[in-house]
């Protein structure tokens, strides 16, 4: 099983398949918008769905290394960069949906909104923090800054995970409705906890 998975993951089709799977949610949302299938408030549905998919993509990219180590399916490592870029892709769509549907692209209003509302500020900070990670995701960038420093920089992903959960938690706080927040927080805690545990064991 492990051998088969590894062989498949190192094949030429693995990445294109991973790409198509990662794009499916957005294709589904676009179809939903065109076919008027997003419910009574399609704008809200788009903002929420892109936020949900950002969190899911974040869980997926942070699961790659633990899964690889635990299962021995080393080929998973090849998928990590694309998975990371999809976090940024969905985060960008989420920000775009908010700026467009919620704020009508009024830049001064958006700036005021970010300054005024802590949960928007936290979400926006997570996006800002993700940007250098996305920009340095190609091989030459790694060489240019040095592998070690690149690695330190990309640990900011853990910070992004924390901010994203805080953003979601705050969004739901007024209505005391934390069931979904708890699910993402639990998954991310396990993934970050696993790393912490390993670090402690190694030292």
């Amino acid at each position, binding site marked *: 099983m492990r051998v088969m998975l590894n062989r498949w993951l190192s094949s030429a089709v693995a990445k294109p398949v991973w790409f198509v799977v990662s794009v499916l949610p957005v294709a589904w949302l676009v179809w939903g918008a065109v076919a*008027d299938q997003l419910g*009574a*408030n399609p704008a809200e549905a788009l903002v929420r769905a892109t936020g949900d998919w950002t969190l899911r993509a974040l869980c997926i990219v942070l699961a790659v290394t633990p899964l690889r180590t635990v299962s021995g399916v080393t080929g998973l490592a090849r998928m990590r960069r694309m998975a990371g870029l999809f976090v940024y892709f969905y985060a960008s769509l989420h920000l775009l949906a908010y700026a467009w549907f919620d704020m*009508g692209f009024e830049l001064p209003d958006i700036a005021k909104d970010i300054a005024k509302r802590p949960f928007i500020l936290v979400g926006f900070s997570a996006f800002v923090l993700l940007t250098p990670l996305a920009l340095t995701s190609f091989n030459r960038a790694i060489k240019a800054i040095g592998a070690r420093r690149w690695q330190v920089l990309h640990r900011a992903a853990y910070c992004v995970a924390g901010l994203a959960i805080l953003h979601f938690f705050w969004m739901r706080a007024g209505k005391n*409705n934390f069931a979904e927040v708890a699910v993402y927080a639990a998954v991310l805690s396990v993934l970050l906890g696993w790393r912490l545990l390993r670090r402690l064991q190694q030292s």
Partner: protein
Amino acid sequence: MLIKSQDNGFNHLVASEITPQAIYTRRRELLKGAAAWAAGAGLASWTAREAFADSAWGSRLGKLAALNTQASKVEGALTMEKVTPYKDASGYNNFYEFGTDKSDPAANAHTLKTSPWTVEVEGLIKKPGKFALEDLLKLSPLEERIYRLRCVEGWSMVIPWIGYSLSELIRKVEPLGSAKYVEFISLADPKTMPFVGSRILDWPYAEGLRLDEAMHPLTLLTFGMYGEVLPNQSGAPVRAVVPWKYGFKSGKSIVKIRFVEKQPGTAWNKAAANEYGFYSNVNPTVDHPRWSQATERRIGEDGLFAKKRKTLMFNGYEAQVGQLYAGMDLKKYY
């Protein structure tokens, strides 16, 4: 990319494009008449309702019992704005007893048993008692009122409600001079309401109004919408509607109305006092701590890329209700 909703034909830029209600109603009468001529009187009302259901207010109508109404003469009771399609008004609801997602109530509220139903009226009144729903329905003629509904979450609808001014009931029970507030208690039945028992709110759902707010002719004791009895997810069989306040002030599925001296605790105020005040008048100048209240999205009407519309003071009912709050600091009493 231009995404058109199926309701584009109803986007009226100028008021003159809107069919006056009298003509609209006459068309319905004509339709009824034609149906009567063609198919006999027995079939007529059915045909008219089907045609009606398929036309302006959208599908899924015609499944619940119809209610006979007269047009309201209360000032401000009949906005001429385009009515929200029935499928949106009945499919996009906050009714946390049946779930927190806005599609949950429509999916889960079928378990609610609305008959028999009684409303207990008690407290500082001369004539306390229990009212059977049938008696409440006969207490005063039912009127159709087309109100804007503004949710605290920043969306709005236009809904043709059916009911009569709550003041009709209040006069019948004769409040004592000491009664200053009216409290509305909703049903909290864990057997039929799956989320009663969750810790989201302090059940039963409770809401309240100052007595003069409750006596205002626009405050509606509501039994139906879109020509029919209320669907369960909209607060069947009887609810309040207070059009100049955020939607959550209008308690659903009411089982008790209590007249009290002190301002009653209300469900959302108890859950998050800094976000949901007792008054909760629609007010574009007082923001919710986590979002602006200056604008709103009209459900089912504005296209996906349309700008949100500006929220009106007191949801556009300032001329009717502004004097209730004369001299009050609405930033403090939000």
